């Protein structure tokens, strides 16, 4: 089968290419999926650079958000049948014609979602859910500020924030992309070219945002400290800006806010019961038709690296899909 193989860690993805490899056989508790769609997530890029929390020894195949049909069942798997349309999360292996996934991490694909949408869902919505509900304790009527809103996890946070009854302010660097975020349900959008602090204050009658969702870091984090409400929660999701910010600890004290780190996957590994609840809740929403991930475009497997670069260069609104 054809698979994207990372044979050497590299910053410019020169160590990643499509190769012919054997079709893998499922082990106990695993199923083999004939892949229909796999979405690109930022950790896929970091994995190929050796800069993700999870370190894999090359050669390996990245790709964590998979949708397809079950092609083979490993020992002890009785909750699925051959041919079932499924989707869900693995940690790697998705950018290939066939992928092995633990049956525990799989869901039946909701009938109202396409394979592309189903492959776009798990990582982004789990991140949004753990961030906003578990770590951020966002409540209806509060104001949520979403940075990097046009990205995959940003769009998911806008969707989940609205679903939870928050007023959502979305930021980004491009009016064109922000128009899409607005159409997707954000109450207000702010282009950060001229900063966002004053506008957030204006939109919240001077109070600031109750919860700030920050996958960007750097300058965006620094300015967020200036427009967070008393008792606010500043969620550290990631550092797409490339800079890890510092905060003087007198700031959280004086302004009475919390800086909260979010690791959505690790949360479920540390607290397996709550992890299962998280996964169940996001898929219940999907099955109820209430949430729908935003799909930017679909690329063939051979263009996965182009896709990585598009994500890197922030040319993507929502999720980018690879089809083998």
């Amino acid at each position, binding site marked *: 089968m054809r698979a994207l193989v990372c044979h050497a860690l590299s910053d410019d993805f020169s160590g990643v290419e499509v190769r012919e490899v054997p079709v893998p056989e499922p082990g106990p508790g695993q199923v083999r999926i004939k892949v229909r769609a796999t979405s690109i997530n930022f950790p896929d890029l970091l994995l190929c650079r050796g800069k993700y929390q999870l370190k894999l020894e090359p050669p390996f195949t990245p790709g964590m958000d998979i949708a397809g049909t079950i092609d083979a069942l490993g020992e002890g798997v009785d909750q699925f049948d051959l041919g079932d349309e499924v989707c869900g999360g693995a940690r790697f292996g998705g950018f290939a014609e066939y992928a092995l996934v633990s049956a525990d991490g799989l869901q039946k694909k909701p*009938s109202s979602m396409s394979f592309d949408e189903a492959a776009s869902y798990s990582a982004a919505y789990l991140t949004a859910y753990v961030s906003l509900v578990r770590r951020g304790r966002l409540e209806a009527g509060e104001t949520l500020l979403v940075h990097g809103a046009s990205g995959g996890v940003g769009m998911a946070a806008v969707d989940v924030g609205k679903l939870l009854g928050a007023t959502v302010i979305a930021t980004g660097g491009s009016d064109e992309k922000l128009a899409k975020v607005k*159409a*997707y*349900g954000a109450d207000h959008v702010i282009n950060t070219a001229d900063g966002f602090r004053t506008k957030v204050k204006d939109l919240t009658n001077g109070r600031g945002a109750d919860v700030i969702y920050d996958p960007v870091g750097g300058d965006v984090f620094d300015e967020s400290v200036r427009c967070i409400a008393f008792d606010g929660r500043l969620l550290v999701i990631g550092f797409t800006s490339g800079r890890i910010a510092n905060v003087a600890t007198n700031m959280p004290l004086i302004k009475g806010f919390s800086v909260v780190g979010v690791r959505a996957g690790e949360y479920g590994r540390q607290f397996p019961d709550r992890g299962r609840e998280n996964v169940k809740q996001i898929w219940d929403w999907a099955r109820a038709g*209430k949430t729908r991930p935003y799909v930017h475009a679909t690329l063939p497997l051979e263009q996965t690296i182009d896709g990585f670069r598009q994500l890197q260069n922030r040319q993507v609104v929502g999720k980018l899909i690879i089809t083998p």
Partner: protein
Amino acid sequence: MSLQATIAKLLLKLPASWKVKMAGGDPVILGGRTLDPNFQFLAHGAASQPPMSSLEPEVAQAGAIEGLAMFAAKPEPGVSWEDTTIPGPGTHHIPVRIYRPAEQNPMAPMLAYWHMGGGVILDIEACHAFCSMISKIAQCPVVSVDYRLAPQHKFPAGLEDCIAAYDWTLKNAEAYGAPAGRAAIGGDSMGGNFSAVIAQEATRRGMPKPDLQLLLYPATDLVTEFESATTYGETYPLSTDTMQWFMQQYLPEEFDRANVLLSPAQETRLEGLPPAIIATAGFDPLVDDGAAYAKKLEAAGVNVTFKCYDNLAHGFTAFTAVAPAAREACIEIAGMVRDAYAAL
């Protein structure tokens, strides 16, 4: 026109009191409403037919088209139409009929319209006369969508066709002399369901919102058990039994009826939805459903124009040749669209 249809139309020209006499003798009064004598006459004639739920879907599909054809009026003069196809989901091409009025208002958005039939029966002929009335009175182009039907194509195939048609309308409205990048949506019965769903779904997909949602005797809540499903459970042409049969055909197995793509009234985020025109029919298991959705939208601050046509039955837009009151209602509804357009 078949002999049967000719006779039916002649009989319908009889005075109302005669029709009531021929259809049981007394006016039909249910839940404080009195049925229009023409519908009483039609219902009486239909009572001897087997229930739709006893038929094979293909038989029901063929019979419904033939059965309804004799009741529809001719299209309005001053409106032309063409049949064509537009791109649908995947490789599917959707047949559509596009109406254009001789006197078009360039400010009036193009309307995408979906016909009734529970997602299982009927086609664009069912709303042919009505679409021509909207086109003429609201002075706008109308695209009537021949979406795919269940059980051959179960949920969400028909809905996805309608969403694709909405997207096409946004992108092609300008070519038909309407404002670019904008569209209104509407439909009756199942088409009203699609309209209510798509008015919400547009935001979930990041698409522009429609300018207007026209919901005629819609089904918006397949979870709540409304009193009208019992009071008007045996009415013609829609019974509660037929509705349940439609849903059996339409939905995949183990489908959650609270899904907002089936039951838009179950959505909690109703703020900011487009202005709505909601019209219900008195003799209809769905009469309480449409009224409840109108209330929900109003409570969420949505601009709603609501009217219940107490004496008419479900599906009345397709009965304009045989029930003058149905025709008057359709003219009034088309006028509501025109007025809503003027307020945009």
